[in-house]
């Protein structure tokens, strides 16, 4: 930087200045933080991390009110927060963390996420505060960034607002990774539902975020040592996998609240391939196939081994990417048709497929007419997966059945699956572990057509011998909940959810309402998790 004196001289030497003008361009100042390049998993690239925004409790509340005027879901959230006495009491500083982690085969990479730090009232918001480690739900856009409250068009916007309101603004430090493969992460795929990798990603984000506490502007908010883990949908699976991994590693977990997750992944997969096609199946398929292929390299030689030729080209790199709605618009994925509506033939049991393409209450006695209607939407002529792929998995399941589907026997995953897809789902199935050091709340909605509530019921069944209080199950839907899924403190929440669902059914019709059911459950379960964590 030039001295003042020389600048004045330069001002008078106009000819020289003009000559210089021909060169153009002014250099940037060089005051910048340099990245930690160690590559060590759990280390921040930048510490202190960038503060995205700082919001006071009053402004947060005012913003929620303003949003409620223009958006139906925001209106519903505000009602829920008000009824649950969860209006913001703390301000929130949103930080953007970037940390080193690993991919599905242990390859070094880095990822990003959010660190939300409560500010304001001492003792309630600052000082020693508990941490909530949050695992987000499935995202199809690579730009997903849960650290960004400034962009309402980001796929993470709703989840960001929800966890900021329910946890951070209530005095919890929140750590929420975007996961490897999203945002600035250079990993070319996302290790979707890989229990080992996803739990490492979560733990690395937690370690990294903890290293920033005390160094950020809200330096007075520090870790109390209490750790809560939660997450929704895919994140429910990730949250439970993370609890398991931390328990194995001897790390402190105070309690966890996995929500609406496919914990019994192998049973869920079998149910879908039998014909109980879930809403969202064509969105999840590219993520799952790409993830398993990168992790285990056992699914295919070319994508057309599994995928119909119309969708095979580039199938394994579609997601995360431009996002599911765009992919459907571009004709790269079908909206709902996972399987062909013509049953496969020449299989191990053609008669079976005739009755399950799609299944009906007559052929699959456990299902209702409403469920059969939902499953039928998963069949069509412009379908995604080949009949041969479906038949191979189902025929293996008929010989090597899961212990929870179609018959509930051991409730455990198949003992010796031979089909590669079934072997991979078994590898990431969470049955077989039990929380021995910290209690769990499992929350979901009984009619969930996207991630079946049977996942929760299977885990509940496996853990039924645990003493009261260690395992809590909540079905927020009064129409399906029984006494064992309706813990007393959450009855008002069930009533509120059922009222909201009924209003939605009235407004958009039952078919459209069921399509939104999985999303509708999320804020209610998240509020339940917050209520549950307050006990510790």
């Amino acid at each position: 930087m030039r001295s003042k004196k020389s600048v004045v001289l330069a001002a008078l030497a106009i000819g020289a200045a003009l000559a210089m003008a021909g060169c153009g361009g002014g250099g940037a100042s060089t005051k910048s933080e340099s990245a930690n390049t160690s590559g060590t998993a759990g280390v921040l690239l930048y510490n202190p991390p960038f503060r995205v925004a700082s919001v006071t409790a009053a402004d947060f509340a005012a913003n929620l009110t303003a949003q409620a005027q223009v958006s139906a879901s925001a209106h519903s959230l505000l009602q829920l927060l008000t009824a649950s006495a969860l209006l913001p009491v703390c301000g929130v500083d949103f930080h953007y963390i970037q940390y080193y982690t690993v991919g599905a085969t242990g390859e070094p990479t880095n990822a990003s996420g959010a660190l939300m730090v409560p500010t304001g009232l001492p003792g309630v918001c600052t000082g020693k505060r508990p941490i909530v480690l949050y695992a987000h739900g499935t995202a199809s856009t690579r730009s997903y960034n849960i650290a960004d409250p400034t962009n309402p068009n980001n796929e993470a916007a709703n989840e960001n607002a929800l966890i900021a309101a329910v946890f951070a603004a209530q005095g919890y430090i929140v750590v929420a990774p975007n996961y490897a493969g999203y945002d600035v992460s250079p990993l070319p795929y996302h290790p979707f539902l890989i229990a080992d990798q996803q739990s490492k990603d979560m733990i690395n984000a937690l370690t990294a975020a903890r290293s920033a506490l005390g160094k950020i502007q809200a330096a007075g908010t520090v870790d109390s040592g209490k750790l809560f883990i939660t997450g929704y949908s895919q994140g429910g699976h990730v949250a439970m996998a993370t609890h398991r991994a931390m328990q194995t590693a001897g790390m402190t977990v105070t309690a966890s609240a996995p929500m609406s997750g496919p914990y019994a992944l192998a049973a869920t997969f079998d149910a879908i391939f039998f014909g109980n096609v879930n809403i969202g199946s064509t969105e999840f398929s590219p993520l799952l196939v790409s993830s398993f292929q990168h992790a285990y390299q056992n699914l295919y030689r070319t994508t057309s081994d599994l995928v119909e030729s119309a969708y095979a080209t580039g199938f394994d790199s579609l997601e995360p990417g431009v996002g599911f709605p765009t992919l459907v618009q571009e004709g790269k994925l079908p909206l709902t048709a996972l399987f062909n509506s013509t049953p496969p033939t020449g299989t191990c049991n053609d008669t079976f497929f005739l009755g399950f393409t799609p299944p009906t209450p007559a052929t699959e006695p456990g299902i209702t007419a409403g469920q059969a209607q939902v499953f039928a939407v998963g069949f069509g002529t412009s379908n995604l997966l080949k009949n041969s792929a479906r038949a191979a998995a189902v025929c293996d399941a008929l010989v090597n059945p899961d212990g929870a589907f179609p018959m509930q026997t051991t409730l455990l995953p198949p003992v010796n699956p031979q089909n590669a897809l079934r072997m991979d789902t078994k590898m990431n199935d969470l049955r077989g572990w039990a929380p021995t050091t910290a209690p769990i709340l499992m929350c979901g909605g009984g009619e969930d057509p996207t991630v079946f509530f049977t996942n929760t019921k299977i885990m509940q069944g496996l853990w039924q011998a645990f003493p009261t209080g260690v395992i809590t199950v909540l079905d927020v839907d009064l129409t399906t909940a029984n006494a064992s899924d309706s813990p007393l403190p959450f009855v008002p929440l069930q009533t509120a959810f059922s009222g909201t669902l009924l209003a939605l059914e009235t407004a958009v019709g039952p078919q459209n309402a069921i399509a939104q059911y999985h999303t509708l459950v999320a804020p209610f379960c998240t509020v339940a998790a917050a209520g549950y964590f307050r006990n510790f």
Partner: protein
Amino acid sequence: MKTTTTIASLCTALALFTGSADASAQDSNDVRVGLYAVFYHTAADDIQGPFTPKGVTADVGNLQTVYLAYVRRLSPHFELELTAGVPPTSDTIGKGPAKLGSVPWNGQTVGTVKWLSPSVLLEYMFGEESAALRPFVGAGINFTHFYDRKVNANGQAALGGPTSISLNNSIGPAGTLGLYYRVLQHWHVVASFSAAQVESKLTTNTDGVIRRSNRVNFDPQTIVASVGYSF
């Protein structure tokens, strides 16, 4: 390239006028000092980049500084003015949302920048050489170099952390019109109004990680009152 050509042709023009100046009996040189009142008419795009809400931009505060000029008489009707102010410090003022998060933005001074902004103007003087009062018009080129760019605590709080700024140099047309009034044989006063096109690309870098940028047209208009001495 275009800029180089413009400068070269201007230099050629200067040489021609300088050559014809010998015929004049008047003083050939003139230095002026005065007051420069600068009014910015900033038009800036929204700042683009990660974690940046829509509608965030910045403005520049108006200011006064000392005006300095050297004027060379080329012919009875043409003069060449080389002008500059003592480099002023401009306040950068947040414009857009009232707050970014809960940090005030609109109307807040978020930083400062210094300008080195010389112009060269070819001016046509109306009226007889002997007249005391002579209006004039002029046109030329402005060059602006920005330096000592600083983001203050307000700006750092709003932008997310320690932030550096760069602003590209600008070259653009400048024009002036004014009144010259000779008071004594060697002394005169001048009042003028000038405008210049100053366009730059602003780039911010917060924590070395978050880069944002926008294009800014400062387009300053200036009013000058000065006293000159001819020799």
